[in-house]
């Protein structure tokens, strides 16, 4: 009963958080930022007028009338004629029911769902999930292994090397390492006509790009497509691994060091138990839950920090890259996409946090009872 209550409280907290984020974005969009919306409406009206002037025969007063008419209509459509409070609620409602409007995405990125923001974001999810899952799980696995070994050799040269590596990899921006990797393994390898070089970005070759956007599962069924995907996947994955392994190693090292100085470990040593017995039974076992839970807890923070920007560098069709296109890919920021992405990220983030907390509770025996 207690468990259910804990989870319910947690879920309620997260939902409130989601609503606060939603409210803040909607309010910003409805109030202070409505000037941007007005600018965009002006631009849209101008482009409509331009095409009318090219194809129809209107005199200047008619054009004037038409323009003001179009602007009023668009403002009504965006709800700009309503007071900010109503507009905020209206935007919130549309967000919650996944009515995220239409983007003005440049068509060279593949016209997903006729520019519907929901479809664009949905098509970007598999890429993000693929990179993040593999990146985090693999780096955690390798990093913890390294961390354990280095903690058991505390103070040795290899332990120090791990420390420096951890410091370095925490300080290097992941996305910048991505740029360097692209420069070296894509640009320079291609320049010296190396037998193998990596693509300059993208998630998959143009041949299968359409398929990936519509049905990513099917890509895994076709061997050539899968190979192509792996070829594109190599550089982003290696980048992510280089950066993230160090952090995990340092973290695992600290946890193991803390435990190996507990009294019961000293006592086991005094008892004269064999070394690997002490390591396995007295150090690693108590360290395991705390390491595992921390992996789960930090996943959302990792995903919505460096990974987003790394996707942009590699033009990896995921949430981060869509952000990038929406911000710099068009002359004015693609507001519907940016706002919906923030909401979608928050939603995803909260779902992940909630799942992780369930796992956390399942792992920690004190919380289970």
């Amino acid at each position, binding site marked *: 009963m207690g468990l259910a209550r804990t989870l319910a409280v947690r879920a309620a907290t997260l939902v409130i958080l989601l609503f606060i984020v939603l409210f803040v974005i909607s309010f910003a969009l409805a109030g202070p*930022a409505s000037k941007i919306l007005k600018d965009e409406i002006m631009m849209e009206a101008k482009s409509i007028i331009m095409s009318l002037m090219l194809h129809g025969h209107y005199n200047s007063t008619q054009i004037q009338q038409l323009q003001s008419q179009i602007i009023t209509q668009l403002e009504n459509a965006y709800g700009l004629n309503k007071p900010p409070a109503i507009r905020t609620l209206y935007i919130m409602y549309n967000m919650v029911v996944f009515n995220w409007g239409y983007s003005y995405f440049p068509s060279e990125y593949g016209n997903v769902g006729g520019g519907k923001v929901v479809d664009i974001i949905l098509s970007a999810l598999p890429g993000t999930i693929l990179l993040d899952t593999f990146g985090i799980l693999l780096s955690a696995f390798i990093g913890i292994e390294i961390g354990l070994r280095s903690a058991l050799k505390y103070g040795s040269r290899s332990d120090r090397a791990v*420390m420096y590596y951890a*410091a370095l990899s925490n*300080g*290097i921006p992941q996305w910048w390492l991505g740029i*360097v990797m692209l420069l070296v393994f894509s*640009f320079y390898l291609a320049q010296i006509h190396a037998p193998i070089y990596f693509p300059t970005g993208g998630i998959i070759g143009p041949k299968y790009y359409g398929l990936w956007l519509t049905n990513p599962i099917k890509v895994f069924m076709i061997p050539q497509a899968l190979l192509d995907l792996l070829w594109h996947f190599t550089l982003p994955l290696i980048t992510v691994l280089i950066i993230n392994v160090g952090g995990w190693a340092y973290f695992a090292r600290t946890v193991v060091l803390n435990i190996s100085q507990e009294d019961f470990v000293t006592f086991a040593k005094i008892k004269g138990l064999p070394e690997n017995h002490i390591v396995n039974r007295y150090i690693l076992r108590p360290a395991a839950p705390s390491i595992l839970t921390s992996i789960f807890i930090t996943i959302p923070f990792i995903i919505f920090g460096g990974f987003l920007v790394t996707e942009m560098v590699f033009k990896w069709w995921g949430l981060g890259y869509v952000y*990038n296109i929406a911000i710099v890919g068009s002359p004015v920021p693609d507001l519907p996409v940016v706002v919906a992405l923030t909401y979608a990220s928050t939603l995803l983030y909260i779902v992940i*946090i909630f799942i992780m907390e369930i796992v956390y509770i399942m792992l920690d025996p004190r919380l289970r009872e």
Partner: protein
Amino acid sequence: MAKRQREFRILGMTPGEIAKEFFSSSTGKVAATLFIILVVVSIYALVVLPPNFASVWNNLKYWQLNPQYAPPAWIDSIIGPVYSPQLYINNYTYVVQQSNGVTYITITFTVDFKYDKPWNEIFIVVNNPAIYSMAQPPVLSMTVYRPDGSVLSLGPLPISRRVTILGVSSEVISQVNLFYYDKYHITGIVPTGSSATPYIFYTIDNGKLTPLKGTYNFRLVFYVFSQNSSSVINKKDLEIVFQGQIYGLMGTDNEGHDLWLGLLAGFPIDLAVGLVSALIIVVIAIIIGIVAGFYGGLVDEALMRLTDFVILLPAFPLLIVFSVLFRWSIWDAVLFLAIVSWGASARIIRAMIMQIRSAQYIESAVIAGASRMWILRNHILPQIIPYVLYLLVTNVPGAILTLAAINFLGLAGSEYPTWGMLLYYAEEFGALTSGYWWWVIPPGLLVAFVAVVFILTAMASEPVVNPRLRYG
């Protein structure tokens, strides 16, 4: 009392012991060395850069004489004389003659050309508006005596602007074309749309365009159609610049900005960004932590709920959306980042205070009639201050990295060039597809350097604040 002052201890250690502990590890020594380097370079940057550097940086005219997309000048000393360097001619002979109402200014100099790639352009800069804004502008004619004995006459060119660009005038292009036609019977050697200047330094060898290495003599004659003393182009007003293909210590970008200066400017601003944001974070964390830990009860509960919220906020996506919506500057972003990042630090401070508060000596102090403020000042603050310093250091790299990332997206920019913004422009202008490594590698390395300095400092101070990690 004085004796007790000398025995001042933090976390059971005297300041001397703390310093000893910090420097006992190699991490501490490395961190301290790097930190000193960082501070020295930042001060150097502040001294070297002019106070109005932001407006200088954004004034495109200031950089127009520099080559664009030029690698650093030192690559020639590695791969041999391949690219011609930027040349500022100031060692020239200068003769003024006046007759029949015309002033003749004759300038001669020699240039040694030993590179595979010749100069992009030759600029004649006259820094005196009275000269180039005359009703009948002065005229320049140029004669080039090439190493193979041939002579190339260029001009006349009107000097009607501060900067006269030699190779783009149609006069010069047709003269160079004619020169190649007379000598080698090749028509249209200068491709349309490009400058004629490089072709001054070429010859035709076996039907192929090859650089003609050797000493070039230049003779420039300015005709000023007036005989006043004010019509003389003074030596100090005249600059002749050969735009090279390599430039400076760190090369240039798409606008010809000297990247060395841009990188230097990044030091103070990145340090300021990191420190200001860490400072705000720590101040908020101390206030929240002390209030929550000290008052307890409902206040504590409410503040801890708030802290949970703040920790859970997806800071980066929110930072993106607000930067887009409100066109935030870098300082707005710093403030926002600080306001959403204090959660973890506040939790640590609160936990420490809770622990200290339940100690026996606090109870004794309360019994002895000590006020809350007295306990706070005498028992709690001295104990948490080293931790606060530690938190300050740990919060700096996060802020620097996040700000670099948001700048890399082209958001939250500043007038001053930051390393993140340099990388944004590098990405925008095809540094990756054209291999402009000098534009991409240094800014990222510097971001990493500053972050690593603070991370190492934090790591080295960990044994101080966490006694379990002390060696031995």
